[in-house]
Each structure stands twice: as structure tokens, then as C-alpha cells.
């Protein structure tokens, strides 16, 4: 009996989307396989963030279908399998928020009313805090940290549910060279050791060169896909 086909963490099938000013993406198909690192690039306003938001169900396509782990995104409920790191500008806070609170907020959907945090959740928090090197910063105010430290806190939040798909939007913007190196090491570990699928949206190729198996260039309403290095577990379409 043949083994079942691996389920793609993310699939966009003939997706089109437009704002009032017209179509931004037209008939785009893309799939990201387990353990695959896909970079999404393109000039400002080309639609790369729109592509990512469609993939996460934050925008509804005008045509086509988006699937997460084989399930239509509109009926998808296993959101702990997906980690999302938005642009750091989204982390601006009117109120003080500690690094630990940011990380903990990643588990909010699974928190039960009037219940204490489970030992598994505590262990998971400890794991990601250690993985991202945030041990000494747990009680620090997020706003008072460097760009790189803030980014690591946001990534820790995305990883705290042990997702199988991680989506990062411009993760190296405003981040110093040292922090970029740490970030690259963490992403490499996630893909190569933990088999996570990573979608990395950026205009800066330095952040993903040598890591990305495929580069998806978004421009003129369509995409062009370029293979960068072997992707043994990937499903490569374009």
C-alpha cells in the first residue's frame, strides 16, 4: 500500500486578490512543504505581505483557495500549528509589556478560563526562552529592548505552541548584524533539526541567503519561483 502523500503546511491554489485600486495578485499558486524554507521577495507594494496574509487567513481571496495542512483556511482550527511573526512595528505598545507576557500571549488561545498555566505550557515557555536566548530578559519591558531582542521575543511568541509552519514578515528590519546572525542560526535549527516549514517575507536577501530552498519573487500581480538549493521534503510548484 503506498504511503499517503505528505500534507503541505501551506498551499495557495489559483488565488487572486485585489483592493479597490485593482488586482494585487492574479491566479497565484504556491505550496510550501514540511521542512522547507521559502523566501518571499519583491519591491514595496508588490503584494508579498498580501500573499502572506492570504496564506494566514487574515485576508480572504477574491478567487482561488488557501489551505493550511490540507484544510481550507476558513475552516482551519488547529492554529497552534502556525506561528506568525509580524513586522516589529506591530509590537509597539501603549502599555508596558514584559518579554514573558509577550511569549505567554502566544498560548492565549489554549488558555482555559480561571485555570492556572499547565506544566506543559510552562515547559514550552522555558524552552523557547532558552532557544532564543531571552533568559535574562524575561521581566524586561519590550519597548526598552534593542530591535534584535524585540524580534527574538516575537519569534519566541510564535514558537511557543510548537508550530509546524512559521511565517515571518520582514524579520530583520531594524535589527543589528549580531542579532541577524543569531536569527539565522535559530531559523536554520528550526528547519534542519525540527523540520519546520518557514515562509520568510523580506526585501533583504542577506537574511535568507544560504537558508532558502526557494525564492518566490512577487511582482506585477504574479510570482516567479527560483530554486536555490535542494529541498528534499518540499513540494515545489509555482
Amino acid at each position, binding site marked *: 500500500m503506498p504511503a499517503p502523500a505528505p500534507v503541505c503546511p501551506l498551499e495557495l491554489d489559483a488565488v487572486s486578490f485585489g483592493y479597490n485600486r485593482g488586482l494585487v495578485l492574479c491566479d497565484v499558486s504556491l505550496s510550501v512543504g514540511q521542512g522547507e524554507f521559502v523566501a518571499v521577495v519583491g519591491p514595496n507594494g508588490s503584494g508579498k505581505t498580501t500573499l502572506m*496574509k492570504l496564506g*494566514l*487567513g*487574515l485576508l480572504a481571496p477574491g478567487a482561488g483557495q488557501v489551505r493550511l495542512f490540507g484544510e481550507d483556511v476558513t475552516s482551519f*482550527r488547529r*492554529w*497552534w500549528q*502556525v*506561528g*506568525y*511573526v*509580524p513586522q516589529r512595528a*506591530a*509590537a509597539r*505598545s*501603549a*502599555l*508596558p*509589556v*514584559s518579554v*514573558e*507576557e*509577550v511569549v*505567554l*500571549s*502566544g*498560548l*492565549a*488561545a*489554549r*488558555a482555559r*478560563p*480561571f485555570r492556572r498555566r499547565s506544566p506543559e505550557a510552562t515547559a514550552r515557555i522555558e524552552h523557547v526562552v532558552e532557544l532564543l536566548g531571552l533568559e535574562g530578559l524575561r*521581566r*524586561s*519591558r519590550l519597548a526598552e529592548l534593542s530591535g534584535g531582542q524585540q524580534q527574538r521575543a*516575537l519569534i519566541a*511568541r*510564535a514558537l511557543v*505552541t510548537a508550530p509546524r509552519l512559521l*511565517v515571518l514578515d520582514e524579520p530583520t528590519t531594524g535589527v543589528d548584524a549580531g542579532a541577524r546572525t543569531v536569527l539565522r542560526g535559530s531559523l536554520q535549527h528550526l528547519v534542519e533539526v525540527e523540520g519546520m516549514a518557514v515562509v520568510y517575507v523580506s526585501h533583504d536577501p542577506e537574511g535568507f541567503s544560504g537558508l532558502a530552498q526557494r525564492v518566490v519573487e512577487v511582482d506585477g500581480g504574479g510570482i516567479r519561483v527560483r530554486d536555490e538549493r535542494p529541498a528534499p521534503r518540499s513540494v515545489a510548484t509555482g
Partner: protein
Amino acid sequence: MNPFEFEFMQRAFVACAVIAAVAPLVGGFIVQRGQSLVGDGMGHVAFAGVGLAFLVGAEPVLGALAFTALAGLLLVRMGRAGLAGDLAIALIFYGGIAVGYLLSSRADAGQTRLVGLLFGSPLNLTWSEVGIIVALSATVVAVTVALYPRLVAMAFDEQAARVAGVPTDRMTLALTLMVALVVVGGMSSIGLLLISAMMVVPVAAAAQLASSYKGALGLASAVGAASAVLGLLAAHYRDYAPGSAIVLVAIACYAVATAWRSLTRRAAA
């Protein structure tokens, strides 16, 4: 004379301290979402409910509850439909106060009673009214505690919270209804037009000093309660309008907290 000896002052202290302690718990989330004025708008809408209650001879608190709850539902629906623009919200809120005054004047409610609802009259509360305020406040605290992790996640980053599986539409509705409960709870004590200040100002003061979200909410709650007690003392000894005195004490707390933070930052630099 010791103000705590008088029963009307005891009622005022309990009602104002409780609602002023609870208002920042909700305010912490609306401030973080950049909706600091939503409480003010809800106060306008509540006034329409009060006006209708006067006209039909019902309890003002029931009219205010019904109208603010309806406005909350409408705002959330408009938000989902992408219609909750600045202008649409302004129309609802200003329409509320206009309808409120129109109905109140038709009902011949009396200027003293109207001013008391708009700017607070805690010294005239009965124990049953204090009981309603405490019950509404307890409901808000219970919902806040139950939903706290989801509310924090949504307030901090709504899109990330959605991707994490937080039902942000339902959380927005819960938050809007909690704002409505606080507005109604603060109506007769601090006033429909002033209670929203107690959702925002103590939070702004606490944000200067705290280092965590939970710490900020706890400190804001304490600032709110302390402002209520000090404001009522000022009202008692200096014959100030109680609602105004409470809000002005909270604003003074914000000024002190801001100055303190500025001084400690300079000292650390």
C-alpha cells in the same frame, strides 16, 4: 467632621472606589487598542437610553444598559463589515447624546437629575444603587479574569492573536460590552461624561511606572480607587463637584507619575 461617619458618604465611597478601581481594568485594553475615546462615546449612547427610560418611566440604568449593549453590538458588526470608520462611529455617539437630551426634555426629567447623570451625583446614591454598581463591577472583573490571556493577546497584536487562534471578533464584542457595563456602572456615581476618563487616565498614569501589562493594570486599578477616595474627600471638605474632583485627582496622579518617570530616567542616564 469625619466624612466616613455619614451613611451617604459611605455609599459614595463604596460606589466610586469600586467603579473607579474596575474601570481601568477595561481601560487597559481599549487604550492599548488605540480606542481611548470609545468609553466617552458609550456614555453619549447611554444618555439616549436614559432619556428613553425617563420618557417611559423605566429605571435609567436599564435604558442605559440596553442602549449601550445595542451600540456595542452595532459597532462590532460595523467593524466586521468594514464600516466602523471614524465618521460612522461619531454619528452614533453624537446621535446618542442628541436623542438623549431630546427625550429627556420631552419627559421633563429636570435639569438637576440630568446634570447628576452626566457629571455624577454619588452623594445621592441609595444602597440598592450601590448594589447595582458593585454587581456590574463584579461582572466586569469576572469576565476580565476569565478572558485575560486572550484580551492581552488581542490588545497587544490583533493579527498575531488571530493567527494564534484567538477568536478576536468575540473578544472585541466582550470588550465592548464590558465598556458598556463600566459606563452604566459609573453613570450615577462619577457621571456618563466623566466615567470614561477613569478608564483611561489611571491607565496612562500606571503605564509610566509599571514594567508589565499585569502590573500596569493592577497599579491603574489602585490609582483609580485612590483617586475616587481623594476626590470624594476633596468634595466633602472643599465642596467640589465629586465627579470632577475624582477625575482631576486622577489627572494629577498622571502628572506626578510622568514627572517621576522623567526624573528617574534622567537619574539613570
